[in-house]
């Protein structure tokens, strides 16, 4: 039997802010199957980003356990977590976070460069990834000559070019207008459906949240609702 892609038990995270301690995540249990499409919602400070960061191996939990593809990962050394992120995870950020000195294609090539993929292959894969997000005619454009929606498309292409098992997106449409938001969401959903890439995204947009087949609501660092289409 294939283990879940993510399996978190009692996941907790507390931050210090001066003298104060802020409990960002308070013992979250969540299981996400491979190929799932999951939306996270909740007010600011509810723990959405913290949960994504922990699941994406960007941060370490203070309490609880996290399994990735059945393997316990919370205690792995940073170098192994880096390798897992490089090979199996993709990230899309609200502010795109493209490298300004690289062209669109070079930004998309970057994950393949650090993975040691040969020049010709990575150029081809980056070109294909950009074509898949509708930017075949923007290959050599630097980020500052792209619109917000185009930048986010480049970021999505960068996040999926290496064929990750999961794509984690923290408010991917937060900086986009409604028309562009719809296009980006369509793109993300299509990647999930066509490639089977697990998609987890956090959003404040109720309409977008409602489109996801699985919807998790967080409040005060806890999961307060976990709904699935079909009565899950």
């Amino acid at each position, binding site marked *: 039997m294939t283990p879940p892609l993510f399996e978190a038990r009692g996941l907790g995270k507390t931050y210090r802010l001066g003298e104060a301690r802020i409990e960002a995540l308070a013992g979250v249990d969540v299981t996400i199957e491979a190929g799932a499409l999951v939306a996270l919602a909740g007010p600011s400070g509810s723990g959405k980003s913290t949960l994504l960061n922990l699941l994406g191996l960007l941060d370490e939990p203070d309490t609880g356990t996290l399994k990735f593809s059945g393997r316990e990962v919370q205690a792995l050394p*940073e170098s192994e977590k880096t390798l897992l992120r490089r090979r199996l995870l993709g990230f899309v950020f609200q502010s795109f976070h493209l490298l300004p000195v690289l062209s669109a294609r070079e930004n998309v090539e*970057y994950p393949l460069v650090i993975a040691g993929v040969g020049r010709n292959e990575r150029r081809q894969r980056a070109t294909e990834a950009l074509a898949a997000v509708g930017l075949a005619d923007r290959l050599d454009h630097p980020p500052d000559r792209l619109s917000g929606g185009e930048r986010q498309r480049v970021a999505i292409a960068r*996040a999926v070019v290496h064929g990750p098992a999961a794509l984690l997106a923290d408010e991917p449409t937060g900086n986009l207008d409604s028309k562009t938001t719809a296009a980006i969401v369509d793109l993300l959903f299509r990647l999930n459906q066509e490639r089977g890439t697990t998609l987890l995204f956090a959003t404040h947009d109720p309409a977008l949240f409602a489109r996801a087949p699985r919807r998790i609501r967080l409040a005060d660092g806890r999961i307060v609702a976990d709904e699935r289409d079909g009565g899950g």
Partner: protein
Amino acid sequence: MASGFGLALRNLARNRRRTAISLSIVAAGTVGLLLTAGFIQFSFAGLEDALIHGGLGHLEVVAKAAADERSATLERSLAHGLVDWPAIQADIESLPGVAAAAPNVHLMGMASKPDGATVSFIGLGVDPERERRMGFTTKLRAGADLAAGEPAPGQDQVLVALGLAESLGVAPGDVVTLLAMTSDQTLNALDVRVAGLVTTGIQDLDTRYLKLHFRSAQRLLATERVNDLIVGLDDNDDLATAQAALEARFASREDAPLAVVPWRDRAPFYDQVRNLYRGIFWFLGSVIFVLVVLATSNTLVMTVMERVREIGTLRAIGTSRGQVARMIVAEALWLGVLGALVGNLLGLGLIVLINGLGLQMPPPPGAVNPIDLKLAVVPAALVGSVVLMTAVLALASVFPVLKAVRLKVVEALTHV
């Protein structure tokens, strides 16, 4: 795509002003090193040339006993002088690469003018014709140099140093009587005409020094001997070979052994000057090293702090700490290489400019003549500065690298 050094170069091009500042720091340090090395190298070469062609020659052939006993002064006894020196001279001059072997006679005594002024002197008897052949220079300040040929009896000439001439109150054309003790301890006198006034370049020596033909000196000392033979070579680089050849040639002279002494052994202060200059160079080099490390490290830290979110992004998508470190080190190495190359160009331009201006520095303590401010182009310094500045920037990148790799991914991603 640009990766490694290419990406580093693009990152440097992002903040051109800061990169220009860093390059200026490295270039300024390089220029400082080049000018210092050029000045020191020129000084060494100038001093070496001044010593060799100012009278030391490349080699000195002298009786071994005299070499063993002698002090560093010009006052030398003829007791161990060379008797068969014409044969030795002919032997030396038959060697290839030898310009000439000139006899020297060292003497001391009293010089007096007919009206009564009397001053002690230290004198040197030379062969003017051979000295000219060896490229020796006389710093003539008035009158004429010694005639090339041997002076006939009664036609003896002398060159008097400025200080001694002033004490005696003589000018070119005047007659001076030289008094000295002969080898059999009797007092002898010789009237000589002042051909010209000279300077040795050393203030103290100028108060006592005179120079005359070695035949005149032999007449005064009533001897046929000379103290030594000064050997001049066509090429400075042949010194060791010529020394070995002469030593081999004279090895069979067991009854009157000879020593072949290179010029540096007769000019101990030359090595002292070299060591002093080297000390100054290393001190200045160390100061430049520290300044460049501190200044560029600071700008590299600023670069890292400006790109915290970017570094966070790189780490998030799987860039290892080592890869981030290499990216920053690559930027530092570019700054080192490019800065040093710019510095080399600027330094070469400045050297040409300074040499073209014909500047002079005041005479050093005890010296008479100003020193030309010239700078040599030192190829080793051109290459060395690139290597050194690259190493300096690699060192300067240590702190920024530590700063970058210690960033926590999540904190870096949300850095404002």
